[in-house]
């Protein structure tokens, strides 16, 4: 039609004015980012069916043109073909911007090589979609254990918190779709509220070298990103169905994406899983079921130059906590530890009773970005998070169905990032963020608040430079400043206020005296400076090294500041301290990477000195009408952590391979001259794998997981008097469980269903020999064994 009109128009013109076809169109084709000339771009003049190419300076010219509309198609390797309409009324000069798809190219590399990184000089590992899909029924913490040096601290097997090089909770920053998760991460039994099924990739950056994400990530940063959406007209999705024997739980997750070539996209994802009581080799773990519902929507528009994104996610988890772990006093704890089996273990059930937790986390995010010619990319983002946590204890009378803890944490963040990448050899990033957070502890629980009501204000700015010195050497520098202010209103028992000697140091913050309780208004401010520097050097095709340094500060979290009360699941009184200062980490990381056709080896070593490290330690006992309880206080010390993470892969041929992941870590309390508590013990995973493309893409792997007994631990055991037996016994809360060795198996095949769809069937067995074991970093190890054998069948359909 267009052509027809044009021809008609040309004819009309020629009738009126006569033919004048001596005009010239010329110009320059250059790169959008840095304005550099694009050599060898092909220009196809659609209307005339003629071709030309740009010269070495990116110039082109087309002669003998008539008046009228020209349609050009400009194409170049790694650029999107661009269509341009130009009206010729005489000799015309027209410059063309091409969009060199550097980022998109990188994305393609992810799939081909699996080494797409967010930082250049950090110790960083990426987990890809395929790996994550295997963990569809599990948690973020479970999946991350695939990375050498990442372990977890558990409360049972459904509350799993990632530990990076020995550090966890507030020392780890989790980002989901570029939103920093604010979900009361301070507590050990508060697992990250993430539905793993909503993530396409996860990058783990060890240490505080990714300053764009936060300055207080002393342990590291976990970045979850949704799957890439390719810009073409299509509708695609996948569904994962799973069933496992242990916990007798089905799980389902489904994703559907509609994308348009013009840049619009819409993705919906939902997942559901349900588990009953899990089982050790010998008994059921009563009340360990869980029920999880997740939903996310992601929509927006993206082109190379600009785009926006609107994202919403909802996650609801109801998690049962081992019935036997709820105890009354120190005597119950002694009985529980000394009992071979948990004191309560019943038959299998899907019921979830108290003690349990129910958490709903919602994230709403919107962002907008624009690229500026010869300059860079500017992004602005606003996000809102609502975290609602209920914890139910075993209570009596009218309070039986009432939550013992009811916290609502609301967080608003506004941030802007600017990336100046016109010169690919020197990329600069700047960012600014401001946040407001409100915590509300509902008094209707009838239980004194564990965490008080507070308002928190955050402000941060950073600058990062990524310099490419030459083909083989990259150098990074970063600097960040953060300001945090907490304005809390907290009730203290007058007796506690005096016992803490706050009446001497904080008398001026008391705003109300209720007799037995005081209402106080602590306003605490913190200024944090972080810095990072790193260099990578590639010696040759096989050998490269990374060396980096990070300085970071972390302000104390509400739990470390305000805790004051009895923690039933641990049978201990936990006390925070308003005087706690921020902790400062100096971390050095050195990595050596080797890669040839058969062997890839990655050695990551680190040394982390933390000044004023905040930790919790038993300091005595207090007696209440319930009996005696150990008192655990938050204290500060100087700590040193160091270790080595190894991952190696050796391919014998196209079918057989060997894989090793080993992590060794030591943690020292320098002031007390003893080991640090809760350090992961030595762990090595060795696997032998086989794959054969001819047998329906068959893959199988046999894994051996060996975890040695932790021999370095602080001895916090103490003698307690047990009135009912009239004797003093040793309360052994320190001794780590013995060494254990587990075998696992996983396999899968892929069947092509049609041109565009396939079915993947996976069979996994964990703990093949049904070995009884307990893990040092599982808080329920005092009460029960860890999980026994589990068969898992997973069907995955891509369409």
């Amino acid at each position: 039609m267009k052509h027809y009109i044009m021809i008609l128009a040309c004819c009309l013109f020629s009738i009126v004015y006569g033919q004048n076809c001596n005009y010239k169109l010329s110009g320059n084709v250059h790169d959008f980012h840095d304005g550099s000339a694009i050599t060898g771009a092909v220009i196809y003049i659609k209307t005339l069916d003629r071709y030309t190419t740009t010269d070495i300076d990116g110039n082109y010219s087309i002669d003998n043109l008539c008046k009228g509309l020209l349609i050009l198609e400009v194409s170049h390797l790694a650029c999107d073909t661009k269509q341009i309409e130009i009206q010729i009324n005489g000799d015309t000069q027209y410059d063309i911007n091409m969009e060199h798809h550097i980022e998109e190219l990188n994305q393609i590399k992810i799939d081909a090589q699996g080494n797409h990184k967010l930082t250049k000089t950090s110790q960083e590992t990426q987990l890809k979609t395929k790996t994550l899909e295997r963990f569809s029924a599990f948690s973020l913490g479970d999946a991350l254990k695939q990375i050498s040096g990442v372990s977890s601290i558990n409360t049972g097997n459904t509350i799993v918190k990632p530990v990076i090089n020995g550090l966890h909770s507030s020392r780890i920053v989790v980002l989901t779709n570029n939103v920093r998760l604010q979900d009361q991460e301070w507590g050990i039994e508060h697992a990250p509220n993430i539905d793993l099924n909503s993530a396409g990739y996860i990058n783990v950056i060890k240490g505080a070298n990714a300053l764009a994400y936060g300055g207080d990530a002393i342990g590291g940063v976990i970045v979850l990103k949704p799957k890439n959406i390719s810009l073409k007209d299509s509708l695609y999705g996948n569904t994962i169905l799973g069933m496992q024997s242990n916990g007798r739980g089905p799980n389902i997750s489904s994703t559907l994406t509609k994308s348009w070539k013009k840049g619009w996209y819409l993705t919906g994802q939902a997942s559901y899983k349900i588990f009953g009581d899990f089982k050790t080799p010998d008994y059921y773990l009563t009340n360990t079921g869980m029920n999880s519902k997740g939903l996310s929507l992601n929509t927006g528009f993206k082109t190379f130059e600009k785009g926006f994104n609107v994202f919403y996610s909802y996650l609801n988890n109801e998690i049962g906590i081992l019935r036997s772990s709820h105890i009354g006093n120190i005597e119950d704890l002694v009985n529980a530890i000394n009992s071979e089996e948990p004191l309560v273990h019943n038959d299998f059930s899907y019921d979830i009773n108290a003690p349990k937790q129910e958490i709903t986390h919602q994230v709403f995010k919107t962002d907008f970005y624009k690229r500026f010619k010869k300059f860079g990319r500017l992004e602005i983002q606003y996000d809102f998070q609502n975290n609602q946590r209920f914890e139910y204890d075993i209570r009596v009378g009218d309070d039986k169905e009432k939550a013992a803890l009811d916290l609502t944490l609301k967080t608003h963040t506004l941030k802007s990032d600017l990336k100046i990448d016109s010169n690919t050899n020197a990329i600069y990033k700047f960012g600014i963020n401001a946040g407001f957070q409100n915590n509300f502890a509902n008094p209707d629980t009838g239980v004194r608040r564990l965490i008080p009501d507070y308002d928190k204000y955050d402000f941060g700015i950073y600058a990062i430079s990524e310099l490419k010195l030459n083909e083989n050497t990259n150098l990074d520098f970063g600097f960040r400043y953060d300001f945090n202010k907490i304005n809390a209103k907290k009730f203290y028992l007058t007796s506690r206020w005096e016992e803490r000697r706050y009446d001497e140091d904080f008398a001026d913050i008391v705003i109300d005296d209720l007799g037995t309780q005081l209402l106080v208004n602590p306003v605490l401010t913190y200024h944090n400076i972080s810095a990072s520097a790193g260099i990578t050097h590639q010696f040759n095709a096989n050998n490269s090294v990374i060396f980096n340094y990070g300085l970071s500060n972390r302000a104390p979290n509400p739990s470390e500041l305000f805790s004051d009360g009895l923690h039933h699941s641990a049978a201990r009184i936990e006390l925070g301290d308003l005087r706690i200062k921020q902790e400062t980490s100096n971390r050095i990381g050195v990595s050596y990477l080797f890669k040839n056709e058969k062997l890839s080896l990655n050695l990551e070593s680190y040394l982390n000195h933390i000044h004023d490290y905040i930790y919790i330690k038993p300091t005595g006992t207090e007696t209440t009408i319930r009996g005696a309880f150990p008192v655990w206080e938050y204290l500060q010390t100087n700590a040193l952590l160091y270790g080595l993470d190894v991952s190696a892969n050796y391919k014998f041929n196209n079918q057989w391979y060997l894989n090793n992941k080993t992590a060794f870590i030591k943690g020292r309390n320098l002031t007390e001259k003893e080991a640090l508590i809760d350090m992961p013990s030595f762990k090595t995973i060795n696997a032998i794998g086989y794959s054969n493309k001819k047998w329906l893409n068959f893959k199988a792997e046999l894994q051996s997981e060996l975890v040695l007994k932790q021999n370095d631990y602080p001895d916090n055991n103490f003698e307690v008097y047990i009135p009912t037996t009239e004797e003093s016994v040793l309360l052994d809360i320190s001794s780590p469980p013995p060494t254990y060795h587990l075998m696992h198996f996983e396999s899968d095949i892929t069947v092509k269903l049609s041109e565009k769809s396939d079915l993947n069937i996976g069979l996994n067995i964990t703990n093949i020999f049904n070995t009884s074991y307990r893990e040092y970093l599982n808080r329920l190890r005092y009460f029960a064994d860890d999980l026994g054998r589990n068969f898992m069948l997973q069907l995955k359909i891509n369409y």
Partner: protein
Amino acid sequence: MKTLKNLSILFISALVFTACSSDDDNPEPVNEEEVITTLTATLVPVGGGTTITLQTQDLDGDGPNDPEITVSGALAANTTYNGTLELLNETESPAESINEEIEEEDEDHQFFFQITNSLATFTYDDFDEDGNPVGLEFTVTTDDTTGAGTLTITLRHEPSKSANGVSDGDITNAGGETDIQAVFSISVK
């Protein structure tokens, strides 16, 4: 221009959100509802004599202060006492009796009495629907043994009353969680 527009929309929405959630009200205090501050055992001798009361009182609950324990006097030898227990939450005023809650859920509660040096024997006088003991009412009997020792009164929540010896007052196999544990120094004269 369009960019600016989008930016301003973002900013405004952020401000609106922030503005909504700020208020200056002080939070309300929480009075612990099911805290037990006080346990009083009253022992009335059958056929007359001095009534003995044993009390443990911990007004700051889980706070740092130890419970105050008082014993009104020595038990008489060769005497039978009718014993009752009273549990109070004195953080509320007037003080709230917890006895009722225990009576309502008597199958989930049991008191245990342990005394050293065989100074006395305890028998249960109240039972739940299944005929298992509760212990809010009990009988203490002393014989001609005299001397000093300790009496431990323990309240267990959700004990297994059917376990071996539990219904006879033996705590060894009771399990459950301790709600109260009070140790009194007593003597029999």
